[in-house]
């Protein structure tokens, strides 16, 4: 393997955990995330020469992941987009179990948002990207990013309303 290949490999390997985490957030489960990431890595490896350094490598890889994710969403039956692998119950206390169920539930609702809203919310809220960067990454206008973000949050307010109330009560 040449020095250049080694550099590429280091670059890819350093981004694997982040990429996998993003894919899990988008799909809602590890199994589908792995499928998406495999395809993304293949595409990225094939077209690595097109990475010209005008954005970070992470952004470039994320763009590929989003493209593969969009293809996956259109080809997958809607019933199958439900979460398949939330965390397994651990040997924890009951309070921890309850908290875990709650955390799983919130994640599920995020991963069940409409595709575009989900992308925007995940990038802005969990990948810590600015709306401008998200707009560039997703190929949207900044207004579009904001409107998707607002819609996503409104949807979550509606679906997680009971939990919010619970939070207040507790």
């Amino acid at each position: 393997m040449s020095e250049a290949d080694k550099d590429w490999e280091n670059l890819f390997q350093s981004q694997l955990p982040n990429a996998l985490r993003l894919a899990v957030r988008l799909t809602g489960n590890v199994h589908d995330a792995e499928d998406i990431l495999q395809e993304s890595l293949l595409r990225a490896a094939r077209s690595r020469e097109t990475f010209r350094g005008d954005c970070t490598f992470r952004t470039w890889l994320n763009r590929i992941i989003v493209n593969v994710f969009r293809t996956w969403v259109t080809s997958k039956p809607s019933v199958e987009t439900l979460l398949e692998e939330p965390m397994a119950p651990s040997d924890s206390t009951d309070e921890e179990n309850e908290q875990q169920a709650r955390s799983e539930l919130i994640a599920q609702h995020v991963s069940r948002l409409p595709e575009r809203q989900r992308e925007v919310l995940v990038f802005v809220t969990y990948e810590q990207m600015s709306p401008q960067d998200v707009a560039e990454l997703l190929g949207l206008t900044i207004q579009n990013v904001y409107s998707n973000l607002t819609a996503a949050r409104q949807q979550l307010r509606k679906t997680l309303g009971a939990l919010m109330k619970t939070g207040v009560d507790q």
Partner: protein
Amino acid sequence: MNADSFKQPDLPDGDLDAELDLLLSEAKWPEADAETLMRLSALTTTALQASGEDLAMTVKPLIAIKSDRQNPWVVIAVSIAAIVLAFFAGRWTTQSDRQNEIVAKPQELNPSKVIENTLLPDQMAPSGDTEDKKSVTPLMGDTSKESLANNQPGKLTPSADPVSAKRKRLSQRDKMKQQLDSVLACLEEGQKAETCCQTLLPRKAQFEYLLKEIVRTATGQRQTAAIAAMGFVGSDGTVPLLLEIAEKPDLRITAVESVKRVSSEQMLAALVLQGGDVATRKELLIGLAHRKTPQAAFIWLHLVRTPDCRDLCLQVVDELSPELVDLLFAELDAPVIDDRLAAIQSLGRRVDESTFKRTELLCQNFPHRWEPVAILMWNGSETAMGFLARLQKNPERYAVIQTAAIQLKTATGAGSGSR
């Protein structure tokens, strides 16, 4: 999720949104295990090493071993393909058999010959004899079955006295036929298949073949008895024939009963998913519900999760065997939340007192688990709702009840199962 990976968006929202942000920061997705990361890492290395068109060829085997998790849809699709194949194979065999009855060249495809050879291996000599016989027997002079069989290269040949060997084989076959006749007579008298058919078990495959012929050709009580016996000795391969018979109204009940007995769990699921007559699908689901294996529980949960089958499944939950009920209770701890929800829906629809008592006990022993609460909620009976109302008075249970309600609503679009 780590707090440092969560960012509040730059949106000027009110207090409610601060609360939403707090809630979103709690979100926790499943985490990939080290094995997944290693697989992806290996894939990356291989993908980078390979180039151009070779890439796909090099990497595909890696993808193939990606996950050992079985996709239920793949299992079902393969089962359906197997049914279709078995059906056409059955049709083809039938046609071949009929042709063989008419055309005077039965040696190669004659099923009785196959059975005889299977039954009496000790009367056969190694194929080496064939060459010797060839050298002294005029090839065209003898057109008997034995001679033709001997001329098949590489086939087993009869012993030195083919006539007596044939007699013995025929008598063996006659014995089997007599045995079968007595079993059918026993069934015609109205006795149970378990009682009558025990003697057929040591030679299931051979009796299955003989029974197929009887099922196709016989009429009246004898045909009905043969169908019932088929359910006892038959295999998956007899399903197409039995389904064909089930289309006749007078034979439907017996034929469907036999299908339930001979089909594997996957086959039953595939038949249910195939659609068609609701009554038959329900019967097949009952067949699955009576099974006792973890595989049956796995398939049951899959069917409950499938929108087309959910209602039918829930209509027959009271038929679930005690073993399956135990397995469904165990599924309340399943790592896959959809499995938990399917188990909840199944158990919630059961009306027997023992399931209710058991759920009540779970509620008391595990006050912070939402699953038992969801079972009672889905049950929706007066007793269950009364129990939940008492539970709700306890402020500590409020969050658990809310969680159960949201999970059910998310899964089904309804808070409780309306009967």
